[in-house]
């Protein structure tokens, strides 16, 4: 174990990795602070860079963007009452009132330190939970894996925003997109319509670029460009230690909620921050002041949303199953880098796993440092005119689509999916279920058909496996819960 840790430290201290951490965190904070972009767009924008970088710097870059963007949303939430990402929506409730009474620097201090603590806590959870889960999953066969995939697909129901039918339909659409190209068992080419480039299938990166980045640009263009009123020039201030000690239970509670919600498929940082906020509002001794600039509100939201980052990596690294759309994109990018997440990663590449954990720790520290030193700079970022920003995002997104295989066909795929997704968004459909379906689809089919070979085409034998039966039961419970939640009145 010590040898692996030393190797990991050696990998971490390379110049490329450190530069990637700094750059990724900075880009993430900026992207997170700008309302409407979000973590997925941020990761999409750095995808071209991950192609050129070695393994660990590439992972470090994505982790930096992920953690930085989740934290960055708090900056605009506090300064302009508009969350940079949905994960910071709850931060508005207390962050903006605090800023309006002249304590914007203190609010940023609370948000930054809470994000750091939540992020570090989730790394500890990741260190403990991921190897255990991977050790369990090594014993999984195709039947168990198929059942696990079905459970993971319940996250589609969770990320379906207003309409469950629309969400599941988009999920099925994504699963079908994943079936275009070579059949995983026989190698037959499916649904290529004699287009040579389609024989390799629809790439995940071009699809994500189109579905998130381009569709978001078109959607923002439709909403109209508005100016924002930014609260003056701000600094950064950390509250005295006694104020933190008064709130240690809030910090711990929010970190625990975020970490464990992150592990569940489909429940992202936004869910964690709201659940944490409502729980703290229920139990905090200062709950009457929440909603009017009470630090407990900021801590509840920010510790929880950053704790999700480590939690979401548990199923991603241990099982190869993404916890949310952000980790779905990261998963695709990891595979491109030759890192195959799953149980084998913990057996064959332990040093890389430790290196990723250490990266995450350094990213969180870097995020806090940048937040503290760069508060004035980040508040100025909010003044970038949106038309310029959207145009530059479009360029970077299309470069990302091109850079995967150096094919204009991928750029065309991104454009078509972007236009289709933008139109579907106006009809109330969302892209997240589609991306999850696209990521999970090929593996789902492979495991299903392998399982059918083993059982000689008999579906009933699937239930002979206790682990598979338990997972099917959990699938039914989660799916039923989602249906009940979406269909009950009010």
């Amino acid at each position, binding site marked *: 174990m010590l040898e692996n840790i030393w190797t990991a430290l050696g990998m971490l201290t390379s110049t490329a990795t450190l530069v990637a951490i700094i750059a990724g965190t900075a880009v993430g904070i900026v992207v997170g602070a700008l309302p409407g972009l979000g973590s997925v767009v941020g990761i999409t924008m750095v995808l071209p860079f991950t192609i*050129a970088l070695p393994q660990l710097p590439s992972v470090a870059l994505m982790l930096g963007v992920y953690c930085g963007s989740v934290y960055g949303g708090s900056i605009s939430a506090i300064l302009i009452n508009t969350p940079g990402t949905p994960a910071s929506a709850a931060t508005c409730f207390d962050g903006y009132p605090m800023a309006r009474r002249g304590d914007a620097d203190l609010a940023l201090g609370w948000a930054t330190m809470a994000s750091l603590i939540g992020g570090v806590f989730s790394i500890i959870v990741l260190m403990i939970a991921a190897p255990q889960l991977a050790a369990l999953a090594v014993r999984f066969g195709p039947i168990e894996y198929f059942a696990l995939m079905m459970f993971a697909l319940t996250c589609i129901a969770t990320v379906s925003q207003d309409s469950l039918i629309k969400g599941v339909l988009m999920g099925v659409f994504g699963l079908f997109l994943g079936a275009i190209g070579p059949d995983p*068992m026989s190698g037959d080419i499916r649904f290529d319509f004699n287009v040579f480039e389609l024989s390799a299938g629809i790439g995940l990166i071009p699809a994500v670029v189109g579905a998130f980045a381009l569709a978001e640009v078109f959607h923002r263009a439709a909403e109209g460009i508005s100016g924002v009123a930014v609260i003056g020039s701000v600094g950064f201030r950390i509250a005295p230690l006694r104020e933190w000690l008064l709130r240690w239970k809030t910090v711990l509670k929010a970190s625990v909620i975020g970490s464990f919600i992150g592990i569940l498929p489909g429940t992202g940082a936004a869910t964690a921050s709201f659940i944490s906020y409502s729980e703290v509002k229920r139990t905090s001794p200062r709950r009457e002041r929440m909603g009017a600039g009470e630090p407990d509100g900021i801590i509840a939201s920010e510790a929880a949303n950053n704790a999700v980052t480590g939690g979401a990596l548990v199923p991603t690294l241990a099982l190869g199953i993404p916890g949310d759309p952000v980790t779905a994109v990261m998963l695709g990018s990891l595979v491109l880098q030759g890192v195959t997440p799953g149980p084998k990663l913990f057996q064959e590449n332990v040093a890389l796993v430790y290196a990723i954990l250490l990266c995450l720790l350094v990213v969180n520290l870097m995020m806090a440092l940048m937040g503290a030193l760069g508060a004035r700079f980040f508040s100025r970022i909010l003044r970038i005119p949106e038309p310029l920003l959207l*145009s530059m995002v479009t360029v970077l997104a*299309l*470069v990302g689509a091109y850079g995967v295989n150096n094919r204009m066909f991928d750029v065309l795929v991104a454009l078509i999916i972007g236009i289709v997704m933008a139109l579907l968004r106006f009809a109330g459909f969302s892209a997240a279920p589609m991306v999850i379906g696209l990521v999970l689809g090929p593996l789902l089919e492979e495991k299903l*058909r392998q399982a059918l070979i083993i059982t000689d085409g008999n579906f009933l034998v699937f239930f002979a496996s206790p682990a598979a039966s338990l997972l099917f039961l959990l699938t039914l419970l989660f799916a039923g819960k989602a249906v009940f939640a979406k269909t009950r009145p009010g």
Partner: protein
Amino acid sequence: MRQRTPDLIAATAFLIGVAVMTWETFSEIYLASGQSYAHNAVFYPRILLGVGALLALTLFVSALSKRGALVQVQTERGKRVAALAGVVSLYVIVMPLLGFLAATIAFLAVAPVVLGYRRWLTVVCVATLFPLASWWLFVSFLKIPLPGASVFWAG
């Protein structure tokens, strides 16, 4: 336009797509595929198409059953999005012809204007500097090739 109209259009589009793909699964090229579930290349896609058809039909019927309020169509917004989509499409089409640099300079000169930004000096600066910086970063520094020009010169 009624509130239910987008749902009806989307459901119809999905149903048409499902019909086309289902037709495709019966084409001759898949006949040589294995007969058992495990070996048949179109077994899994057909399951998805069946589920998709059911969901699209459910959405269609659900939308039909609601009368829905009348909503005003925001034609200005539609025009802006259509114009931007047109500009981005043109950008993708001309990129392999003119190369990344020239195409991006042209795109960044036009797109902000389409989105309503009118500070010409800033547009010119961004349209010039951003593509050059991107070109340097990707091609020279990261060694990621970008599309060259096929029409005039090798980019």
